[in-house]
């Protein structure tokens, strides 16, 4: 069985290895340039001092390397490729070309045929996925530091251990759909749709609720430019919702802080000069404390990053296991 698995999948394995090698090459080369800029511009040392405003430096860096952002999209797509090219043809091609009648009538039971092949392919996928996830996690570090947003889906979904879980899920999904649809091409199409569907649904509906969100409330303080901000620095945390309320709990602004507006003038008549005159910072502070404006933030703290990674990975690995078992059952009992 091992021999047959290797003979049937060696091309896919080779393609995967070459793809991974090319990716590693691109990442290493670009990383050298990025790290140079990161250190030489002083961005690195700026970011290591908490509280310093590195906005301008970060923006320059961001703009300089914007071209590389397409890679982030590629990182999101890679698990899908495994599902499409390794998963979908796994059983479907045997059914499509009729070779299941050959291979399932040798002395090897279907159970062994399926589990050996799947174990080998999933093992290879696991190995490749781990290397790939480690590479991407390492490569994106600078961006994560600049944006202080490990929870941003653009980063969360391509770093840590979730990419590995996505790959296993995509593989098992492709295998099951191929088993049910029995033809490779339609199976690939359906795998694509199902994978994207599940990922979007989990991201939107499940992930925010893995752990009970924390709520924090801070007084609004004025900041330059007529924008008033509130709340502490929730760097790297995942802000789910932020609203500004007055001392009675009424919604004053659906967002963090409050933007200076005629509304504020009408509520603070006497404290703020009528438009078009602009209030001084002192006048604004008076108005804010008069209204008792507070920003209420619902968020997942930065420290939960790995817990969230663990929960999400568990979900996808469990899904992959369920899909694998279902596909195995269909292969043993229902097909042909």
């Amino acid at each position, binding site marked *: *069985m*091992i*021999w*047959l698995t290797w*003979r*049937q999948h060696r091309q896919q394995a080779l393609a995967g290895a070459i793809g991974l090698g090319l990716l590693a090459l691109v990442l290493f080369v670009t990383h050298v340039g990025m790290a140079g800029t990161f250190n030489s511009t002083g961005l690195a040392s700026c970011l290591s001092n908490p509280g310093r405003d590195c906005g301008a430096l970060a923006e320059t860096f961001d703009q300089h390397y914007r071209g590389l952002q397409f890679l982030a999209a590629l990182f999101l797509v890679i698990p899908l490729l495994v599902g499409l090219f390794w998963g979908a043809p796994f059983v479907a091609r045997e059914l499509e*070309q*009729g*070779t*299941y*009648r*050959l*291979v*399932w*009538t*040798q*002395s*090897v*039971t*279907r*159970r062994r045929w399926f589990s050996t092949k799947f174990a080998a392919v999933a093992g290879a996928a696991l190995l490749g996925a781990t290397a790939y996830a480690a590479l991407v996690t390492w490569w994106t570090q600078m961006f994560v530091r600049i944006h202080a947003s490990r929870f941003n889906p653009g980063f969360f979904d391509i770093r840590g251990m979730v990419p590995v879980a996505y790959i296993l899920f995509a593989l098992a999904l492709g295998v099951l759909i191929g088993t049910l649809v029995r033809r490779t091409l339609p199976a690939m199409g359906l795998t694509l749709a199902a994978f994207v569907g599940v990922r979007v649904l989990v991201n939107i509906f499940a992930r925010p609720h893995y752990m009970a969100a924390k709520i924090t409330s801070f007084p609004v303080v004025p900041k330059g430019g007529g924008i008033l901000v509130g709340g502490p620095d929730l760097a790297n945390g995942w802000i789910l919702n932020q609203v500004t309320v007055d001392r009675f709990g009424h919604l004053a602004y659906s967002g963090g802080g409050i933007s200076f507006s005629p509304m504020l003038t009408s509520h603070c008549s006497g404290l703020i000069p009528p438009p078009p005159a602009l209030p001084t910072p002192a006048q604004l502070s008076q108005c804010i404390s008069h209204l008792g404006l507070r920003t209420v933030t619902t968020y997942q703290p930065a420290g939960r990053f790995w817990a969230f990674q663990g929960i999400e990975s568990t979900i996808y690995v469990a899904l992959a296991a369920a899909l694998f078992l279902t596909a195995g059952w269909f292969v043993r*009992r229902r097909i*042909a």
Partner: protein
Amino acid sequence: MNTPIETTGLSKRYGRNWALRDCSLSVPAGKIAALVGPNGAGKTTLLHLAVGLLDPTAGEIRTLGESPRENAQVLARIGFVAQDVPLYSGFKVKEMLELGRHLNPTWDQELALDRVRRHDIDLDQRAGTLSGGQRAQVALTLAIGKRPELLLLDEPLASLDPLARREFLGSLMEAASESEITVLLSSHLVTDMERVCDYLIVLSSARVQVLGGVEELLATHRVLTGPRTDRDHVPGWEVISSSHTERQSTLFVRGAAHILDPAWTAHEVTLEDLVLAYLAQPTASALPGPLGSTRRDRMEAPA
């Protein structure tokens, strides 16, 4: 030794259509059995049931004494060549043999290599580029290399030209006589089977219509010709079919008695005559049991 194939009330339904219905038959050990019938009669279904690729809807099938679906170990003792001889087209011939060697504990590599060489097949050629005859030989080699007790072949002749057909059957006979295996091969080409088969199963519209040893079947069937008569009745014989011209009547009959009426001239039948006569009369059947009794008679008879 277990009966190679034995079915009782075996039925298989796809949706609303019965591919095989209430099929009871057995193939005795050591026979080369032909499974014939028109397309769609259920030949492939029967073979797939025998090798566990399908699950019966009702009834039971035992292959070498085991249920192939419940006890997949029996697969090691069955050689199977599916219709259109599926091979991995990207595999070289030697890799197809490697497949056989790795997937079968009883594999005989010497035998397999020898067979392939004897048919002048290049071991390094890809299976996808082989001719129809070569494909069939490689597939047969895979099945025989297992050293099976039972060989099942689904329409192995369909894609072969007459010469390749003859050669294939010849090599099949040779392999069967060398290792005393039971062979069941399906075909809709009756003439080819006559030379090699000693047992016959005729399937027609999902049912077994004829079952028995070829010699015995040929001995118990006659074509009678004589002057035109309206009486489709010959004492001691069952009339399967009759045709009449203005001056002559021709009857296809089954039985064993002497023909007393001098008006009739009896002719021996060929296997093809026999198969065609039965296929033309879907209600007639020749099954083991008291001679002259049709299926309906037996079903109505008290137990």
